[in-house]
């Protein structure tokens, strides 16, 4: 088949991109070469619309061992230990085929982590669905949860935390973001940079089939009504093989055979071989007849573009082939020497003794397109003038009931009970808390991890929203007593070819960067997912942040459940009464306009670090950050978890009670302390200029707001836990 512009456009390339390819090659590419270009130059692999902006992210810090650019980021957690972690999207495939899409998303991110020599110790996920009224939502949710569980449970890696949200803007494009943390010794980290000439290139893992061909291209386009036809582009996962691959790779990594290793993720053998060659400034020669294939008569084009799962490419030290083969034989995995490194700086492919592709590596990587797309700046919306008489008509009890049982606040137990969250025997904080926490096996250290996003805030004002998400994860980590170290980000947006969407992206990135810099909380890895769009309607901008922190002595970990009757509850941080974009505003007042709550980075940092100091001094009995639904929602969750009540003090504020209880001002935490420590704690808060108010006193089994407004803990529990269960029946 001879290649022309029409075929190139069918491959998702633009006309001028095709012309650029011909110019770079000084000839017309053949079909295999065109396939390789289309795979490397699509948005998903090349980051052509985002690269120019991602450079602005704050990525440096004392604890960063490896920032963005590798399979995953790596941070130092002392004593020679390091944590490898990353988040990645699998949005498009999960909408088309929820079980396999979500499962292979989890499989892919775990591979990214163990490729670097780390044993995965925790999984997290952030999943977003359309309106609960949408016909597809229930099945998509069920399928995605089954898929995440199906893969993670089989791998024996606990799923320790997550986030689920529902919003109409995801009706045509759900989001499935999966995150994995792995543990590695600092001096045993593996990278993807090839080195040395004539080194054997090894293929291990599953056989190559026709599944997933053009998966990366599919993920680089918007959806239309023919989306069902794209099912064959979704890969099929085999977690059992991945478990074997994990054990076999870690066994091989304990020796000194590996020079470079790269998993075959998006764009399979194409991107893995090219990335290793590019980083090593080398060429690679591959004999495609040696690639283990599942199906007969696969063409070079299909072999190069297959996205079959559970495969790895390794550059070995010469002479180590036998040692390596023995290990993969033991684990019943395919092993084949398929090529070697060369000094040509080209990727050369052979099939049936003929050369079928010969492309300079730099044309695929450094010379790939990079766009500075037009983008539109967002204005901060004007504050809503809420008619305060409306507040008088609202009963706190009814309002709280609606909020606690609303889809985005209600308990997600139905979801996380389907994930094995206790395997590996180190999970000390389960899902449902502010962060998941796992111990570092056989040490006193523990790692806290959380994942968050706030699309509504980002939609209202991307710059503020970007900052807010970072701060939210920072607070989640502080609330469990962890020192925040670094983040990974998954940037989910609509089409970059629209100025509004591109503007949302640019300003969210700017917000993330500002917050990360101020908090000394760098981005070490991440992924961009554009084209989350169906028939011209895009999702709300949804940058997802995964935060990771360290608890030096796990016995000092904090949980959110109220601990003891008569203890005092304080709220740290100032409550100004910001209602715009709050849950109250959206679901009770039906008002969707206005600015998101302001983010004051000085207060965030100061409040957070002061609370960590109080935790370090053992003053804090329980803690929880204040987020969606405001103070009263946060208190309710602490009551439910601890099975204890609270006598709430009448707020001294001039603002309305409704505003006080439901406002979503940032930088706030609720803390429980023993009355005898109140003086000392106040002194520390005052000294650090941290604003605080007394919220109430812990009592038995009842939330008393005033003489007329009382709720039992069982009532709170039933509001909070029943919605999702009954929705999913």
């Amino acid at each position: 088949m001879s290649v022309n512009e029409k075929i190139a456009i069918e491959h998702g390339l633009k006309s001028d991109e095709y012309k650029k390819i011909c110019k770079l090659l000084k000839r017309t590419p053949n079909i295999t070469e065109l396939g390789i270009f289309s795979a490397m130059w699509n948005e998903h692999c090349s980051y052509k619309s985002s690269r120019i902006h991602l450079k602005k992210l704050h990525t440096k810090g004392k604890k960063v061992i490896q920032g963005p650019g590798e399979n995953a980021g790596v941070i130092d957690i002392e004593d020679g230990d390091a944590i490898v972690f990353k988040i990645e999207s699998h949005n498009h495939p999960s909408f088309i085929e929820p079980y396999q899409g979500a499962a292979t998303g989890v499989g892919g991110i775990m591979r990214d982590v163990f490729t670097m020599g780390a044993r995965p110790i925790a999984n997290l996920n952030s999943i977003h669905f359309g309106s609960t009224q949408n016909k597809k939502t229930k099945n998509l949710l069920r399928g995605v949860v089954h898929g995440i569980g199906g893969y993670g449970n089989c791998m024996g890696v606990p799923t320790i935390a997550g986030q689920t949200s529902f919003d109409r803007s995801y009706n045509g494009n759900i989001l499935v973001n999966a995150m994995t943390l792995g543990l590695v010794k600092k001096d045993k980290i593996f990278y993807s940079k090839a080195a040395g000439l004539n080194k054997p290139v090894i293929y291990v893992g599953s056989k190559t089939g026709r599944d997933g061909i053009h998966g990366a291209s599919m993920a680089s386009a918007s959806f239309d009504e023919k989306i069902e036809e794209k099912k064959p582009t979704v890969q099929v996962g085999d977690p059992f093989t991945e478990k074997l691959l994990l054990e076999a790779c870690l066994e091989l990594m304990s020796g000194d055979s590996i020079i470079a290793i790269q998993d075959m993720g998006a764009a399979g053998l194409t991107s893995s071989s090219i990335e290793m060659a590019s980083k090593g400034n080398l060429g690679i020669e591959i004999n495609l007849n040696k690639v283990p294939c599942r199906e007969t008569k696969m063409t070079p084009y299909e072999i190069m573009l297959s996205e079959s799962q559970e495969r790895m490419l390794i550059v070995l030290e010469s002479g180590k082939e036998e040692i390596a083969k023995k290990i993969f034989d033991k684990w019943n995995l395919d092993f084949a020497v398929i090529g070697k490194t060369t000094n040509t700086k080209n990727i050369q492919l052979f099939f049936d003794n003929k050369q079928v592709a010969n492309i300079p590596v730099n044309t695929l990587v450094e010379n790939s397109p990079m766009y500075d797309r037009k983008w539109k700046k967002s204005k901060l919306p004007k504050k809503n003038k809420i008619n305060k008489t409306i507040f008088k008509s609202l009963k706190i009890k009814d309002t709280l009931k609606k909020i606690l049982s609303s889809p985005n606040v209600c308990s997600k137990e139905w979801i996380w009970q389907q994930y094995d969250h206790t395997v590996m025997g180190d999970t000390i904080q389960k899902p449902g808390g502010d962060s998941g926490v796992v111990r570092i096996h056989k040490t006193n250290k523990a790692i806290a991890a959380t994942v968050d996003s706030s699309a509504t805030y980002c939609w209202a004002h991307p710059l503020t929203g970007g900052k807010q998400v970072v701060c939210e994860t920072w607070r989640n980590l502080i609330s469990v007593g962890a020192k925040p170290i670094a983040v990974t980000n998954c940037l989910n947006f609509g089409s970059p070819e629209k100025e509004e969407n591109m503007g949302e992206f640019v300003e969210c990135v700017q917000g993330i960067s500002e917050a990360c810099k101020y908090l000394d909380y760098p981005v070490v890895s991440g992924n961009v997912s554009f084209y989350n769009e169906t028939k011209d309607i895009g999702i709300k901008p949804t940058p997802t942040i995964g935060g990771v922190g360290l608890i030096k002595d796990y016995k000092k970990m904090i949980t959110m459940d109220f601990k003891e009757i008569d203890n005092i509850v304080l709220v740290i941080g100032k409550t100004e009464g910001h209602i715009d974009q709050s849950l109250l505003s959206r679901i009770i007042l039906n008002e969707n306009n206005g600015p998101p709550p302001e983010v004051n980075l000085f207060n965030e940092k100061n409040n957070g670090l002061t609370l960590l100091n109080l935790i370090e001094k053992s003053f804090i009995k329980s803690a929880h950050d204040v987020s969606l639904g405001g103070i009263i929602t946060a208190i309710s969750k602490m009551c439910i978890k601890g099975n204890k009540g609270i006598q709430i003090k009448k707020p001294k504020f001039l603002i309305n009670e409704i505003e006080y209880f439901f406002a979503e001002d940032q930088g706030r935490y609720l803390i429980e302390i023993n009355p005898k420590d109140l003086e000392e704690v106040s002194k520390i808060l005052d000294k650090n200029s941290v604003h605080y108010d007394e919220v109430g006193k812990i009592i038995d089994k009842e939330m008393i707001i005033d003489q007329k407004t009382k709720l039992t803990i069982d009532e709170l529990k039933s509001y909070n836990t029943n919605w999702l269960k009954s929705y999913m029946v």
Partner: protein
Amino acid sequence: MKSSVITFPGSNCDRDMDVALTKFGFKNKMIWHNDQELPKSDLIVLPGGFSYGDYLRCGSMASKSKIMNSVINFAKSGGLVMGICNGFQILVEAGLVPGVLLRNKYLQFICKNVHVKVDNKENTFFKNLDKKVLEFHIAHNEGNYFCTNDQLKEIEDNNQIAIYYCDQNGNTNDQINPNGSIKNIAGIFNKEKNVLGMMPHPERMIDESLSGEDGSIFFKNLLNNIK
């Protein structure tokens, strides 16, 4: 006391079991499924996980692996064998304990704490146990125990039911049954009571920082009984 934990391809609670056994004083060895011989052991454990991906039927392929001949011989000669979760499924497939394990009633994987009632203490596993109700942890998709009426009669006549799902006071009823198991059965013995298969994971309950500590009670008692 010596124990051996068998690792099948796809086992994923083998390390956790090793940690637990070692913590409570067993000298434990990890044994590869493809080995022929078992080392001298006082206890053999088949751990949880997804042996052979649970493809075909849970535990079915593992029950045919090389090491299982030795495990079966060891069990038939009176040796103590314990299968947890996937290990229970393997025991069932190997015919070492009666019955089958079906998919959970609500067709979902369940990971949570449960209470179990220990009824029969005339065996090495539960002899001298102070508590009647233990808090354990389950994490499975196929734990719905089932057998024929004739089998059930035989099992009951022989006192082979080891543990039942119950509430914290030891009451068994449908409401508390997490997976639809017949008679709330969570664990079962062979006739001779030297082989125990159970769905709950005591090895996940061995530390106050984890889901609970009743696993510690179980393992300490087990070690004392074997001594």
